[in-house]
């Protein structure tokens, strides 16, 4: 007896999907798929960008290292002993104090401000352009006037 009513209940309870429910379920699945795809796309995109970032960091590090090496190399190559050797190879020699000749330049003053016009003074003489305050109506009127002038030049003689 007991088996009969359960069988009956289950038979009765077989789900008979209706069209609306199916549509909703399908919509849910589609949205889930879309969200999943969007997530995967986002993650893949981010991973790709981060990979690119890593490569750029590596490149930056390498460039920094090369810069450092070049800087040190330049510093070592331009050390005084190296410069002296190169200068001797080029035929230069150290000058003694007796070989240095100083010239007095009459009326030449060390303070440039006293003898040379100030740069800021020059700039201050230039006219500052007016502020831009043209409205659309002004602009439109100007265009109309301009077209009118052109037409009158052509047809009006």
């Amino acid at each position, binding site marked *: 007896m007991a088996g009969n009513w359960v069988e009956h209940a289950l038979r009765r309870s077989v789900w008979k999907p209706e069209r609306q429910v199916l549509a909703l379920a399908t919509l849910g699945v589609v949205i889930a798929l879309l969200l999943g795809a969007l997530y995967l796309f986002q993650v893949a995109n981010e991973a790709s960008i*981060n990979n690119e970032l890593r490569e750029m*960091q590596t490149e930056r590090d390498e460039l920094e290292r090369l810069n450092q090496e070049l*800087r*040190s190399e330049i510093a070592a190559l*331009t050390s005084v002993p190296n410069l002296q050797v190169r200068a001797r190879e080029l035929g230069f020699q150290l000058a003694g104090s*007796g070989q240095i000749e100083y010239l007095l330049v009459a009326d030449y003053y060390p303070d440039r401000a006293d003898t040379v016009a100030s740069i800021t003074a020059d700039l201050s003489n230039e006219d500052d352009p007016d502020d831009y305050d043209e409205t659309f109506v002004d602009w439109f009127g100007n265009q109309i006037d301009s077209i009118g002038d052109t037409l009158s030049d052509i047809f009006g003689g």
Partner: protein
Amino acid sequence: MATQAQSAVSIQQEMVRRRAPFVMLGVMILSSTLLLRVISFQFPQDARVSREFATQRDANAGRIETFESARGIIYDRNGYILADNRRRFRIGVSPNLVADPEQTANDLAAILGRDPVEIFNILRSDALYVPLGTIDPDVWQQIDALDLGRAIQEERLFERFYPQAPLASQVIGFVYGQGEDSLGSNGVEGEYQNRLAGVIADQEVSNLPFGVPEDGSILQVGDDLVLTIDRDIQFLIEQELQRAVVETGAEGGTIIVMDPRTGDVLGMTSYPTYDNNNFADADPDLLNNPAVSDTYEPGSVFKVLTVAAALDLGVITADWVYNDTAVLTVPGGVEIENWDRRAHGLVDTQGVLVQSLNVGAATISNLMGRDNFYLMLSRFNIGTITNIDIQGEEQGQVRIPGDEFWSESDLATNAFGQGIAVTPLQMLTAINAIANEGVIMQPRIVHQIIDGDDIETTRIVALSRPISAITAQLVTDMMVATVRDGFDEAAQLPGYSVAGKTGTAEIPDPGIGYRDDAWIMSFAGFLPADNPQVSILIIIDSPANLENQRWASQVAAPVFRRLAERLVILMEIPNDEIRLALEEQGGMVADTP
């Protein structure tokens, strides 16, 4: 019967229908609760939960790497690099992650220049990690190209490199250790360790492909330093000192070049020295900077301070005269003698300096009295550290009345620079007061500290005025006369007025008093005397061949002259005739080739 059975089923169905909503509701509540709990983990309120999740995440999603930022660069005053960094790589291998130990051992051995069997044994070991050493970037590139994955791990390091070495080694100092263990020592590297050192920090690096890559770029690099040292002047004085020491057979020496108006140290060197790129191989005694950390008895150079102090106090005047009888017996029975052991008769103040008379200096200090004499020495900062920004400065040794070992004879001997110990920098700083119208300037070695876009310029500081400008001018004139008319004529530079004074000092030897086979020869001076732009101290320690090199005027003064001759060119100081004419017209000079 059938009806009864149908009725019973109907009742049961009704019960199920009635209970089903409650069951479903219960399931929904339970599910929702679980779901909410899961969601709540995204916004943890409990610190313990956060910590637990962080632990879980760290264990799986990331690893800790140490990032080191670069140590600051050290420049000379004209922007030439004196200390820089080189990138190196510290590598190690995880044997359990190596797929083909034999091939890998051969490859690594060929690149590292090591025995393949040794590497193979490492790769076959049970160790989790074995360090392979520190290598240059080009070697690392070759290893990286083997594509060994995580079996090889590298750590980027910065290694200190001195491109101009051994130039200014004792001034700059050195850095020992690598990575997190690196530490600046001695000189500027030691003094400015906290500013120069870059930040070394552990950072979590994500293992996930979509984790934002971490790097050390956010770490703050060390500050750069611009020194007051002029590379060309430094090179010049190192050359001249080495030449002088070698030519005289001396045990060593020191030269300091300063701008007396600012306290800037333009050059500072001692010989013998060391190469700070290979400091580990150097004699440890050479790693210090004797210019600030060693003391010596200055001898007759000190008479300049004695005379200046007495003039400033009004104890004597420029016209003051005493009768020099060759010997002065001071309290305690000590006899003070002149360098030539001769009597010089009536001698004026200038004569004490020009003829460098010990008896005259002792007479003056006796006239001053102990309190005035030592008070003036303290005003000249004798016996006090100058506080220059170099590690390892000593303060010298001045015994004053009241000290256990001070005696009345010290008042006399101190007057001519014996029985008193100063550092070379202290001596020149005190002489600078005379060059700088009586004002002592704070010596400095760092001109600027650069932190990114922030440039902090160290201030020029006037420490004190031990003597008046008038006294300074008087003493300057006497020092000019000493070079012009005295025994220090070897220091003369044609066309230039030079103020200076030599000193030939005995060297104390603990236990026996003073050595009788060696002296310290020194010369302190500045030029142009009427408008000093550079001051120089030269110390030559224990020259050999004493027949021709018995006095500082024979040893140190010629070095001063050679040095000054080059310095006036490097510093573009015209001779007095041109300079005074320029000053008169207020114009500039142009030098012709």
